[in-house]
């Protein structure tokens, strides 16, 4: 287990995300741990890529941070602390508060197809919109302006903003997903296989958006990727996962390119 070496980045006062002795079991998996005793600290401003084959647990890890795993009735033990708040023991109100600070990006974009693009982005502000205002679809002007700006920033033309989201291509839907996350003014961005359904060119475009956001605004970003090329190209710190365990954690500077793929994904002829 000598692959587990501490992060070489300058250590901040407190990490923004700290995961300790964390395990997850799905009821359908007959006791097999989806995550097995994970210990991980993510510092403010990092751009982390979690690499691993599908089924390695990287998706469960991200979805645990804002407890989306509850939708799959996962049982979680250990501790997850985001920005000083205990996530696993948060009340439903506290959980909504936590979620509002975390922008989540999905592999299948998860936009509401029948709503206009702009409204999809505005749903990022729902946690700060009152009950009646949101029921009647009334949003603050400043948020509308911000939505337009974020959409333009991720590359969606102003004249398309009132179109239905169903008219967009996959890459465009993902940009809407990113804009939605940006409207939350997140302290942390979690992206679960954000480019797995996109072609290589669009994938790079989308990855560049994450990179820019991280560099310009310093938003801590964790991205799940299964593609080694993209992992190596965009990750500033790379974490490897296999069968629910954390097997690799190094800053980009310390990575041996020759053995990198084998270290994380294993030898193709192994097993």
């Amino acid at each position, binding site marked *: 287990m000598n692959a587990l070496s501490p992060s070489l980045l300058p250590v901040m006062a407190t990490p923004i995300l700290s995961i300790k002795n964390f395990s997850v079991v799905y009821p359908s998996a007959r006791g097999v741990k989806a995550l097995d005793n994970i210990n991980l600290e993510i510092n403010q401003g990092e751009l982390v890529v979690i690499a691993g084959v599908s089924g390695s647990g990287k998706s469960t890890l991200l979805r645990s941070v*804002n407890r989306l795993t509850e939708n799959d009735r996962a049982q979680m033990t250990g501790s997850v602390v985001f920005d000083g708040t205990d996530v696993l023991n948060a009340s439903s109100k506290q959980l909504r508060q936590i*979620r509002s600070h975390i922008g989540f990006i999905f592999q299948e974009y998860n936009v509401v197809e029948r709503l206009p693009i702009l409204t999809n982005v505005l749903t990022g502000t*729902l946690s700060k919109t009152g009950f009646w205002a949101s029921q009647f679809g009334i949003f603050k002007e400043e948020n509308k302006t911000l939505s337009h700006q974020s959409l333009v920033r991720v590359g969606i033309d102003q004249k398309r903003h009132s179109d239905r989201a169903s008219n967009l291509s996959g890459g465009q839907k993902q940009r809407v997903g990113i804009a939605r996350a940006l409207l*939350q003014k997140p302290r942390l961005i979690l992206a679960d296989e954000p480019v797995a359904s996109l072609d290589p060119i669009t994938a790079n475009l989308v990855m560049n958006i994450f990179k820019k956001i991280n560099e310009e605004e310093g938003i801590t970003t964790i991205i799940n990727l299964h593609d080694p090329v993209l992992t190596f190209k965009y990750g500033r710190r790379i974490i490897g996962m296999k069968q629910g365990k954390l097997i690799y954690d190094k800053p980009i500077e310390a990575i041996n390119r020759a053995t990198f793929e084998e270290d994380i994904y294993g030898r193709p002829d192994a097993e």
Partner: protein
Amino acid sequence: MDGRTLSRRGLGRWGSWTLLGRSLFILSLLVAYVLAFRAVEFDPANILQNLHHLRNLLGKMYPPDFSHFDQLIRPLIQTLQISFLGTLFGALLAIPLVAFGTQVVIRNPWIYWPIRSLMNLLRTVPDLVYAVLFVVAFGYDHGPLAGMVALSVFSCSIIAKLASESADNINRRPIEAIEATGASKFQVIRYAVIPQLLPAFIDHTIYVFELNVRVAAVMGYVGAGGIGQQLLTQLDLLKYDTVFAIILTIFALVVVIDFVGNRIRDALLHGLRMPFPVQVLTWVALGWTAVWSLLSLDVNPERVLIGLGYLKNLLWAIVSSPAMEFFNISISRMWESLLIAFVGTTLSFILAFPLGFLASRKYTGIPSQVAFWVKQIPGAIRAFPELILAIFFIASFGPGPLPGVLAIAIHSIGMLGKMNAEAVEKIRKEQVEALQATGANRAQVFRFGILPQVLPEFLALAIYRFEINVRASTVLGIVGAGGIGMLINEALQLRQWNIIGLCLLVIIPVVIVIDFISERIRRKLIEGSHSA
């Protein structure tokens, strides 16, 4: 098409039966059918003998007498108003049931199960039984109002059922995304559920409106207003030419409503987005129609509350002291209703079988004009309400179960013919071609390449239709077409409400059991055919 995978599931088990087993099964099925046909007085010789009555009747009906058409206009409008308001209130009542009756957002089984159970319970009561109950509770002077409330409850039960099934199947990913932003449950419903569910909800609502026009057209028969009352009067006067005129008018109304409804539903399915002014106009028109209908039906909330109060007392009285002395009769009449539905559905399955193929040009090679006209047959048949067909057959063959069987057999062709044709359209060409490539003849290709692909679906549709027909056969007796409805009718005449209570206590559990078994069988059939 591995025989093994088939045999493990559902109907494919047939293939592993011994010859003796198969013969015994077929034999017992035949015996059951013979007994059932006898029990419902379905005797071809007798039918042929009485055919001249039918011809006589048709002679008396033709030509239709439209001379009193002006007297039909008001009841016709009233029928539409009752259907419209019934659908509107039904849809409004269904919204909370749908929102809390699906596990998509509210994952608490303590909320979910009671609501689902209520929805299923509401759905077991046949449309006309609702009408009877509300007419009794509201009084015959308030027939149209009672009809409207009855239709509201009926519509609510169907819309809630259909829409919550749609809700179970909506895409959960956007819901998760909105949850991930920290939004509350109501915000998730507003931004991720409603936008996805709205087209289906409107689709179901328009579909239920189409159903309601049919129901409202005949509901007058039990005193619930609309054109059905005129029909009853003219029938009592034996003025068959005027009756025919009324039937044709109802037919035309239903056809027009179906046509318009289908157009709108198609447009919705294809993601039509109405320009803003059109949206506003639509809402204004709907609102205006609602207000106008409310005013002209003289709906007043006080009257509705009084009626509902009566209904509560009535329900309590009939449920707490049902006429148990009629228990044996009600059971045997219910059994007759089941047989009527069973024989009627079987006949309609046989009749609709060729229609499914003839309406699809794909594998029969018939000219497209013929296919087009064959395709129209089910729609035209569907436009005649069962009750009207039953009345027609009663006038020819006299009261009893036979008119009920015929009415159900013919009316069901409407749905089965249409859905069978859709199943035929879905036939996979590859499997057919593979058989053709082996040098099989047309009959062999049909038997081994086409039939296995459609038969499970045909059967599943027929069984589903049987569920619907059980409800229909329980009420057809109200006009004299056999089954437990006859008992309801007698109870109505004698004002013995506790007999109606007994009938409810018999009908509801039987319908629940039938629905349950039918759903299991259908699922097996469809699963089996998919794995094949």
